[in-house]
């Protein structure tokens, strides 16, 4: 039978790099990414699961990394905002955010990008309503939603 433990050795692949780390059970995935792996692109906004700034893609599924334990990511493949750029160049979605002025303070942007990435993979031609529904879990306190939706629309096929 498996035994309970206060820490666990985990292996995760983040943006193509595999890491092996011993992590306490109480550590949230967002803290593991930011503090242990120094991947500070994913932000902590509310820390209560509401704002979506910590959104990352785990095994192809969009999640809020403040509502998942790092130990639960053992064996997982994780994508964060740092993995979006291709060969050091912003990808099409990131360029579209830039061109449409879809970021003001920029704090929510990593989460917005990951949610939009997950949407466009599942549905390359989303309607405006589908874009709004897909970004519902991401809060922009600059309230710059309009341009964010425009930026996603512009890369929809």
């Amino acid at each position, binding site marked *: *039978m*498996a*035994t*309970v*433990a*206060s820490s*666990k050795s985990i292996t995760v692949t983040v943006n193509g790099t595999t890491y092996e780390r011993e992590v*306490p*059970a*109480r*550590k*949230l995935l967002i*803290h593991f990414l930011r503090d242990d792996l120094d991947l500070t692109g994913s932000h902590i906004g509310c*820390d*209560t*699961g509401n704002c*979506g700034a910590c*959104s990352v893609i785990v095994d192809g*599924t*969009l*999640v*809020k990394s*403040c*509502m*998942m*334990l790092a*130990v*639960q990511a*053992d064996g997982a493949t994780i994508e964060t905002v740092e993995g979006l750029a291709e060969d050091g160049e912003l990808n099409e979605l990131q360029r579209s955010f830039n061109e449409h002025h879809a970021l003001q303070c920029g704090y929510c942007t990593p989460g917005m990008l990951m*949610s939009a990435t*997950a*949407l466009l993979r599942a549905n390359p031609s989303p309607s405006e309503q589908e874009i709004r*529904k*897909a970004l*519902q*879990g*991401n809060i922009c306190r600059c309230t710059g939603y309009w341009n964010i939706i425009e930026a996603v629309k512009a890369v929809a096929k």
Partner: protein
Amino acid sequence: MLLREVEYVKPSSVAEAIELLVENEGARALAGGQTLINVMKARAASPDALVDLNGLEELKGIDLAPDGTLTIGAMTTYSEIVASAEAKARPILGEVCAQIADVQVRNRGTIGGNICSNDPTNHLPPLVTAVGARMTILGRDGERVVSAEEFFLGVYMTAVGPGELLTRVTIPAGKGDGFAAVTLGVDGTCIANAAASIQDGSLRVALGCVDAVPVLLRPESADADAVREAVRAAGLEPPSDVHASSEYRRHLAEVLAVRAAAQAAERAGG
């Protein structure tokens, strides 16, 4: 936020999960974690250990029997229910799951977690009550099946006892269902909600957010006056909070019950 010290274990079978829950007093089952991890941050819950149910395939999946009965594994996520062709046999399930929070939460949150947490503002306790779902609870000594009326015991309390797990939710065939809610923003937390279902000509309405457990009513018909009368006769004394006074919640319960019943009647007749 740093959680209080907690231990963790990932069992490889449901039987092992039960043993771990029995052997470790103070351990709790971790389902999708979209409620539990947050209440742990707030120290509103401080389990000594978490038994992670993620990855237990035995607890996942949606099965549609030839007679239309749906059996949904407790660890099936809202997103899986929304996307499931089988679950469309009872369309209200996917429709309500698609209204819970947001994509990220729906991707991890589970039907079992939603009803086992039995937060009075949750969507699914009234829904499973209205549609007459039956819950299968597994413990060391075997399993038992309980109705929704027997399942929900109090705020955050259900018939799932220490050392036990909800394994699946069984929903009979039907299509005459309705749901209505007033929420904090689109798809937000419910201020009040109501689910309704017509089965063999008889109507069941379950009200959420107005008491510790869903309030089940059996109005004589889906006619608005009959539904209003049934809600009034229930003598509700809903809680007051920053979002709504007790009186306003009582008013919403009536309005939402009428809407849900009308939707159920329309679909039952169609």
